[in-house]
């Protein structure tokens, strides 16, 4: 087990290298000159000399590989540049908003699990009966609606018409998080419920279910103790795959509900061409994503005794 973890951590290094490199290249192939952007944002005209001075200060006159090394060097020191718009250090901007995004992500995942596992199992156990069709139709609708439409519909219904929840912002305590969470959770649950249903159905066909029945074990116990456990592996894989889309998906929801997380920060930055901010967002989201994948991989290995025991032998 430990060997596996170490191996994976080592694999992390080239991946991190690739991430930073790709992001850097991405930012520097943009067709807009950074200094011109800064000039635009200040609203005043600068002379060429002023611009050259700024370029020199930012190290933009050096060759690209050198710039990259400078950037990485600074990053390791904790300095990832400053925003073109606000002038604030971007790493701090990112870190101060990250908790909000994590908060939203966690509540969404929890709600998704609470919805999709029971619904998926119910759908499988009552296969082809009314309950199953009903749940499948709901899933289908959820899958066919883009997140932002769902968000707007929910906003229209529950905030504007019924006034139950605040329209935007994160300041009103637990009420603020309901609609954003609901939006994300509905979209994810729609996908998960389907998968869970398929996994449970597959497990139910297996011999060990017949075996347990032959031994006189109650259906409910078979479901909960054996089938669920066996399905866990697939569920964990699903979760890990979706964390990625969730991390990115918060961007749209955060923008719509004005939820002050890193997603909203990134979208705003893109609209204003604030490249340092975009950069810090992309790099860190990628790193977090890779770390989360690593953790779920390890959990997956831990849950399956077949793999766990083989590693030890």
């Amino acid at each position, binding site marked *: 087990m430990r060997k596996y973890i170490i191996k994976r951590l080592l694999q992390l290094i080239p991946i991190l290298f690739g991430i930073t490199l790709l992001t850097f290249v*991405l930012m520097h192939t943009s067709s807009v000159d950074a200094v011109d952007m800064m000039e635009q944002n200040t609203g005043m005209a600068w002379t060429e000399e002023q611009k050259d001075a700024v370029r020199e200060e930012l190290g933009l006159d050096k060759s690209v590989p050198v710039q990259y090394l400078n950037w990485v060097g600074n990053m390791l020191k904790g300095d990832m540049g400053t925003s073109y718009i606000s002038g604030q250090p971007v790493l701090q901007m990112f870190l101060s908003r990250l908790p909000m995004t994590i908060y939203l992500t966690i509540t969404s995942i929890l709600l998704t699990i609470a919805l999709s596992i029971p619904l998926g199992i119910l759908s499988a156990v009552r296969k082809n009966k009314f309950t199953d069709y009903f749940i499948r139709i709901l899933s*289908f609708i959820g899958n066919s*609606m*883009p997140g932002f*439409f769902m968000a707007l519909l929910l906003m229209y219904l529950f905030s504007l018409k019924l006034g139950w929840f605040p329209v935007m912002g994160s300041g009103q305590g637990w009420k603020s998080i309901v609609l954003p969470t609901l939006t994300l959770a509905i979209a994810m649950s729609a996908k998960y419920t389907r998968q869970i249903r398929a996994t449970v159905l597959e497990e139910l066909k297996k011999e060990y279910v017949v075996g347990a029945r032959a031994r006189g074990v109650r259906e409910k116990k078979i479901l909960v103790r054996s089938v669920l456990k066996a399905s866990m592996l697939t569920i964990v894989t699903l979760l890990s795959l979706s964390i990625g889309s969730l991390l990115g998906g918060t*961007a749209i929801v955060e923008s719509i509900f004005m939820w002050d997380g890193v997603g909203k920060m990134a979208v705003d930055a893109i609209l204003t061409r604030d490249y340092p901010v975009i950069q810090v967002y992309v790099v860190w989201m990628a790193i977090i*994503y*890779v770390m989360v994948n690593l953790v779920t991989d390890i959990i997956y290995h831990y849950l399956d005794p077949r793999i766990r025991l083989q590693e030890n032998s």
Partner: protein
Amino acid sequence: MRTKKTKIKFIILLILVGILLFTAAFAIHLTPYDPYEQDLANALAKPSAQHLFGTDRYGRDMLSRVILGAQTTVFSALALVLIISVTGTILGMVGGYFGGKTDDLIMRISDLFLAFPGMVFAIAVAGVLSGGLKSAVIALACISWTKFARLARSQTLTVKEMPYIAAAKLSGCNGMQILLRHIFPNIAGTMIVTAMLDIGTMIMELAGLSFLGLGATPPMAEWGSMMSNGRSMLQTCPWIVIAPGIAMFVTVALFNLLGDTVRDMI
């Protein structure tokens, strides 16, 4: 499983999708009004007999804009899916069949793209390329091809071990011939189903980028950007958001159903 019910479903859906595509293709000729024509006196009108979906803030007929939006949204999504499925499948087949350094390289590159959460990367690329529908398509293409490559690769790996491939090799077929004549026909089914099921997703993702302002820009009629424009007036004039939204829902649902049915048939 080709039961009769499935076949009937398939034909009905195919017809519906056909109608959709036809409408999208000939949108210009099918709109009741000119989608770009402004009529400020009639701005923000509620849905009525004259304007089935109401008008937007410039007085443009919503129904016409929604119909025209179908063209933009649907065809750019179709183009996108075509690009990623073809590229991904080819790369996956080549990597899976020839193995070795080529395979390693392709896999490393796809791993790299996969290290970024999808939307994050798409947002970054679209932003860097200064917006517009083309950049949104490129951005989504960059991250979505990996799914097809992986799938094609794993399918190829399985098919590669089949006895008839060994037989083909013995009878003197070279790599390219084997790929085209033996491997591709066997994985084509799965790849086509995956591609079809992806159309709906791509429509939604393109619309999502446009919604954020990173894709199609006004005055282009595109569902995502139309909904974004209508956001501020959600309370007073909900039809500006709801009309394109429902159109998108119906479209995606149709493609999803079609993809599901095709999968059932194969």
